[in-house]
């Protein structure tokens, strides 16, 4: 395809710390990487962008020795290296923060940090001192003796960075580090990155959020379909141009159409409270909300502030919740999850692998899941295979699920197609309320647009939609109203037409009281 172009070439050749040439990697049936060429210069933040499944993570795993490339060469500091395990990469000065946290919850910060690098400062006081020192130097604010499970996502992210620094890495890979952070935390992280950069480290930064990329990166490499398309200087492009490079076409964005909101309430939640399992602050307190026919209510919040619990409480998956939940006038209190689903709730769970699918069951059985008491899936006490299969075919057709057939295991589908299947399923059986938790998390741009369309269709057909998302653009683009959840309380209502992500961000972190955009809940 193309070779490193102007921006990268302009970097002084001696400054190049990582040089990837012709990297290729094939998984069974998938070419994840081919002909990848990248140069990363010292003292820069080098971003890599691309659609879901473009091969970014695979490339980084190759650079970190987790996976072996099928072809190509890796040069670090001008020397060709062979990385067959992360230890080799660490020895070569590479550190990586993964897309998902790589922490043992039941270990202390100290244990997590020193693991694998015990030779450096031992596993005792020496290490503790070193952690305190690094923490102070980079303003990470980390207590080495805290237990990881007690810490929030932001702190965990900083531990991951500390882990890398502790090993003395000079090349730091960050794979989507901002996915779970609020804008303020993102800013702090970027400050940290600039600090690192000024110390002469090279940072490789992966993100789907192009504005972020442009604000922090010096150089951007675009990856499409497993190969490098172009490398550009960050100052010289707009995010729109980047997006077009990524997908090869125009970027879709969520936009709300004319309001379809009616005044017929569908979901009415009053004083919903959920006590914590072992004492302490309630997970949810006094939640009041109403969603009308044709309305999308967006819930914004930093992960772990109760949005998952809110959804699960409405779904009846949380015993111990008090308060009233009414669906179209029907009191749901005391009803089981199944009864609530039968009463007309469709549910797109946030983690499709854990909550949405039976990965090792064929698609048509996944069609039955959650609807195993309803037509066309059942006949009396029996599962109706014919009915379920026919309806699965319908979903595959109508929702454009890319699959060779309905007998393949759900595991074999890509994330976006899995998600489309789930949406098709949850829209069956005439729901009056659709609960969508992070419906587009980690799916590619094409599927994302389709999913947004489906949600908008649902709204147009008069469904009430409860939308929980960490993607503020998505929330703003789709919702009729946005409520912010903080420490288990709804703390503010916003009009998506006028609110900015920054305002939402401050409300989500509790700094919103003096914010003009907020109105009392």
């Amino acid at each position, binding site marked *: 395809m193309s070779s490193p172009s102007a921006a990268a070439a302009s970097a002084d050749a001696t400054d190049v710390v990582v040089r990837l040439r012709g990297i290729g990697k094939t998984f069974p049936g998938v070419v994840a990487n081919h002909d990848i060429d990248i140069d990363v210069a010292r003292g820069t933040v080098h971003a890599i962008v691309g659609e879901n499944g473009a091969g970014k*993570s695979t490339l*980084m*795993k190759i650079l*970190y020795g*987790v*996976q072996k490339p099928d072809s190509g060469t890796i040069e670090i500091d001008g020397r060709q290296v062979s990385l067959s*395990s*992360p*230890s080799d990469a*660490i020895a070569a000065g590479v550190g*990586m923060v*993964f*897309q*998902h946290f*790589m*922490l*043992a*919850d*039941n*270990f202390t910060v100290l*244990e*997590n940090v*020193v*693991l*694998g*690098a*015990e030779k450096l400062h031992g*596993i005792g006081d020496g290490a503790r001192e070193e952690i305190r020192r690094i923490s102070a130097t980079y303003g990470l604010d980390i207590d080495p003796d805290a*237990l990881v*499970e007690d810490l929030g996502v932001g702190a965990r992210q900083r531990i991951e960075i500390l*882990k890398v620094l502790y090993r003395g890495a000079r090349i730091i890979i960050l*794979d989507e580090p901002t996915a779970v952070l609020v804008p303020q935390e993102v800013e702090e992280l970027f400050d940290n990155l600039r600090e690192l950069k000024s110390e002469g480290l090279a940072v490789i930064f992966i993100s789907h959020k192009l504005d972020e990329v442009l604000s922090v990166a010096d150089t951007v490499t675009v990856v499409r379909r497993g190969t490098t398309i172009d490398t550009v200087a960050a100052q010289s492009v707009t995010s729109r141009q980047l997006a077009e490079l990524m997908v090869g076409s125009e970027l879709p964005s969520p936009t709300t159409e004319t309001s379809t909101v009616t005044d017929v309430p569908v979901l009415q939640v009053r004083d919903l409270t959920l006590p914590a*399992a*072992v*004492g302490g602050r309630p997970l949810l307190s006094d939640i009041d909300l109403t969603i009308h026919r044709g309305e999308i209510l967006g819930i914004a919040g930093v992960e772990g502030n109760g949005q998952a619990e809110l959804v699960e409480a409405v779904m009846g998956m949380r015993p111990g919740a008090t308060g009233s939940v009414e669906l179209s006038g029907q009191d749901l209190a005391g009803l089981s999850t199944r009864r609530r689903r039968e009463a007309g709730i469709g549910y797109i769970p946030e983690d499709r692998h854990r909550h949405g699918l039976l990965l090792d069951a064929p698609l048509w059985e996944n069609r039955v899941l959650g609807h195993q008491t309803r037509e066309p899936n059942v006949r009396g006490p029996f599962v109706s295979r014919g009915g379920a299969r026919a309806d699965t075919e319908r979903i595959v057709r109508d929702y454009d699920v890319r699959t060779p057939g309905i007998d393949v295991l759900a595991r074999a589908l890509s994330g976006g197609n899995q998600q489309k299947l789930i949406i098709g399923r949850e829209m069956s059986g005439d729901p009056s309320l659709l609960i969508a938790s992070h419906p587009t998390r980690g799916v590619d741009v094409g599927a994302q647009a389709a999913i947004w369309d489906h949600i908008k269709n649902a709204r147009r057909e008069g469904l009430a939609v409860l939308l929980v998302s960490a993607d503020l653009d998505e929330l703003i683009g789709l919702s009729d109203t946005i409520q912010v959840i903080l420490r288990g309380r709804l703390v503010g209502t916003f009009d998506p037409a006028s609110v900015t992500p920054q305002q939402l961000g401050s409300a989500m972190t509790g700094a919103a009281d003096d914010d003009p955009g907020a109105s009392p809940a």
Partner: protein
Amino acid sequence: MSVAVTGTTTVKAPRRRLRLPYVLLGFALLLVLLSLLRIVTGTGDLSSSGTLRATLIAAMPIGLAGLGGLWAERAGVVNIGLEGMMILGTFGAGYFGYFWGPWEGVLGAIGFGIAGGLLHAVATVLFGVDHIVSGVAVNIIALGVVQYLAVLSFSGVPGGGQTQSPRVDDLPSISIPALADPLGSLEQRQWFFVSELAALLRSFVSNLSVLTLICLGLFVLTWYVLWRTTFGLRLRSVGENPAAAETLGVDVIRYKFIAVATSGAFAGLAGGFLALVAANGFRDGQTGGRGYIGLAAMIFGNWRPGGLLAGSGLFGYTDTLRLRGGGDSVHGLLLLVAIGLIGLALWQWRQHGRQSALVAAVLGVVVALWYVLTDSVPEDLTGMTPYVTTLLVLALFAQRLRMPAADGKPYRKGSAG
């Protein structure tokens, strides 16, 4: 098929580590309780040095099997094959013990145990077979191998037979009469607390097999290695989050392998202890399910050596009481259980566990009534004691237990990231 061994509890266990003074205090309390019990029930055997020594011997195979389980599960591999590895150990001890000598018997037991451990490791770690399934298979194979080998090795050997080895010589044991005798007379006095303490000390200085001491040392060693060394940190990390460990350069497969092999070594040693200290040779069926009990004791002990020691002590104690004192001693134990349950009920009430408190209180009253209304527990029922006790304790405490996060989950190399 993978299984979460302690069900689906989501309640976080509070993390208060026990410090030495508390441990000692606990010991003292236990002795006080035993003294009280002796005085109230008039059953002197509850805390005699003989009972305590027998408890030590009965507890050790269970505890060692439990240590085997602990090593494996700390590295994320459930080892229900402990029983089979223990069976291999009894044979190894009998074979090497008879044909070479008792210390060689110990090594033989460990060696055979390791063989069983390696089999489990190959199946679970290399091939990713479900851990329980592999464990069950190991148990079947071990039993077959040992029975088959026993026929080959011992039939026709004087004193041996198809199902047993000839007598194996004793391992050396420690006796310090200079201490044992005065302690003995102190024990005879039946003084409150003092006699119990004397009995406890005496059980350690009269006729204590060296292997018993070594095995006790292994608990400390395990604690030290797993919680105080780099090796241990890595091994535990593999059981908590193998993907994370792999990204930090830990060779997950290797550590799991080592852990499971070590697990086999401990289980083998447990069998060796049975054959060499508790008895004097190999016998078919000698383990009697102690491998499973060891696993239970480990869970009881919350995957920690100290807790495991307490758990196996409980087993050894109840089993010893049954064998030594029969229905009368076990009857005395009822009172202890009743007191314990009611105490627990009060504590849980304060911790706001109203429901558990109620359950515990009701059970406590039932047991107390049983104690008051009868003189002895029927002989046949005394056999249940250790098992009922374990079930009871698990029912009351299971939700406070915390197993390694990745325990029982097969791991494949390269799944990091």
